[in-house]
């Protein structure tokens, strides 16, 4: 009995030590790689922020009106944003290298997937960013226009435009990533159809009212003209 128990314990200890000896070094290596990557990321970001001369880019963004879309009261600076992107890219590279240290089929597949997905993700992010930019810009333009034209609910109109443009960007990004493509495209078509229908109804009602008013005005002016002929008598 005791012998069996000892055998089991020895076996489990051997398994544990085997697992530890096979996984601990890669884990340690991964931690070290990640730490080094973090260190490099911090250093590179600091170096970039110290040396980068992105004033031309700030100026371009300001002059093109792109930076104003963020709506901050402070002038927009590109350097911290680029610095953050560099930081996270280095950290991500460290993470992938750390995962690769395990040298298992699962980690290899994970790394492969991430590496292949990365360019697509970058492009999708750019699409989203552009969508948010354009959405904000158009929304603000619509808000100012609606206020100047004395239209009702200008804020809702602006919000509607912003949501619509950003949603269009989300659809495009999802399509690019091949993620729930049908769902997004269907939703988008439904929204566009709804907008067109609402616009059509609004236009029809406006035309109807205008024609009605014209008709009433016309019918009212005729007798007045006739009456005026006799008024002087």
């Amino acid at each position, binding site marked *: 009995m005791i012998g069996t128990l000892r055998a089991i314990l020895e076996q489990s200890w051997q398994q544990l030590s085997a697992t530890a000896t096979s996984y601990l070094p890669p884990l340690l290596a991964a931690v070290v790689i990640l730490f080094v990557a973090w260190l490099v990321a911090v250093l590179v970001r600091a170096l970039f922020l110290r040396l980068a001369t992105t004033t031309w880019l700030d100026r371009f963004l300001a002059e093109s*009106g792109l930076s*104003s879309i963020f709506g901050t009261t402070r002038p927009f600076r590109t350097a911290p944003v680029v610095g953050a992107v560099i930081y996270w890219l280095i950290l991500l590279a460290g993470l992938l290298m750390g995962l690769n240290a395990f040298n298992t089929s699962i980690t290899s597949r994970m790394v492969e997937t991430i590496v292949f997905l990365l360019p697509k993700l970058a492009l999708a992010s750019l699409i989203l960013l552009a969508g948010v930019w354009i959405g904000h810009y158009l929304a603000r333009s619509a808000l100012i226009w609606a*206020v100047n034209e004395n239209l009702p609910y*200008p804020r809702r109109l602006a919000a509607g435009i912003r949501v619509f443009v950003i949603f269009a960007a989300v659809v495009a990004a999802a399509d690019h990533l091949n993620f729930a493509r049908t769902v997004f495209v269907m939703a988008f078509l439904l929204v566009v159809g709804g907008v067109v229908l609402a616009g059509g109804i609004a236009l029809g009602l406006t035309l109807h009212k205008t024609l009605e008013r014209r008709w009433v005005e016309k019918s009212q002016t005729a007798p007045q003209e006739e009456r005026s002929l006799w008024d002087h008598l």
Partner: protein
Amino acid sequence: MLTAEASRAVAELGHVDVVIGIPSFNNARTIGHVVRAAQGGLAKYFPQLRSVIINSDGGSKDGTRDAVLKASIEDPRLLLLNTPLLPVHRISLPYHGIPGKGSAFRMIFAMARQLGAQACAVLDADLRSVTPEWIDLLLRPILYAGYDFVAPYYHRHKYDGTITNHIVYPLTRTLYGLRVRQPIGGEFGVSARLIARYLDRRDWETDVARYGIDIWMTTIAIAEGYRICQSFLGAKLHDPKDPAADLSAMLQQVVGSVFALMEEYEAVWKKVTGSRPVDLFGFRFDVGLDPVPVNAERMRTALITGYRELQEVWALALQRKTLEELARVCQQAEAQPTRWRLEDDLWVRIIFEFACAWHRRRVQRGQLLRSFTPLYLGRVASFVLETEHMLSAEVEERIERLCLVFEQAKPYLVSLWDLAGRTPEPRLEKVSAEVKT
């Protein structure tokens, strides 16, 4: 620069001494009168000079060009002339490029240069009060007194020309130190030297091509040190503005041009302190004026709606203290519809801060200028309430007081402008205190 048609016309005319330019777009109703007045003026005051009237049309559909070519003085004897007349030529041509008054002027100036004209006068096509004397008053200072630019000076109804009275005149006077009362009047006399300078510039394709042209011409003449005078033309009566015309766009073009020129001539206006009068020709007399209907209530509502909806945009342009004061004004406007006021010092700060926000590009420039419309309407509404029972002379004094507030606050503008791009929140309290002292 000239179209084939225009070049042909220039070749046929050869040389002229004087050009009268009339930009037009659907002005068939009034342009005949303007052409006749110009013809009469040339025949009566400059019979010895070769002259041409050029109508630069923006594609009118109402027979404006025909009206120009048909217009003539029925009986020249009525002008009491005793010298032989040289014929006054008339040309009507369409201009090309961006549709607008500026593009029309560009063609007139280009033709005037090609024709070797010594002087050119431009007149709006919607004028009803123009007389032959206007031609004399706009051209004589250039032809015989060595001036380069003649600005108009007229009596206008107290509610006519509100963009001039509340923004352009006080701001131009404060910036460049010359009291040109009608910097965007629409009628000017220009020398050949100044025409050449205008044509050499490269910013014709901007707002200058549209309503920005008047302030552009005036500012260049002042800032570059050309000899300037004013001529008293009597009353300015013109057709009511096209109701379909977009006030917001017009305001954007005019104010945008003022701000753009502020950037260009920064080195000039920063040195200027105070202001001095400009030579004024012509015999001044009082005239009756057409009443200008205004709807102060609608403008008050526009301000309140603007404050409610556009605060986030204004917050990017205005300082915190200004925004707080504006909030108080809007609350008053809502609570006491007839007793609220948008006072001069607040108005001046709004203008200066918008100019600096434009300079700093804190908001996309077009959006910034369009968001300014409710503030402008609010100021006009407040002014209408304040001057409801005032006579024209009293209103003129009131505008003079506004100009002095502008001039006193100029150090604030300079400091705010200098801070542009360096720190978002200038030390407003300190600057305000300086201004007050």
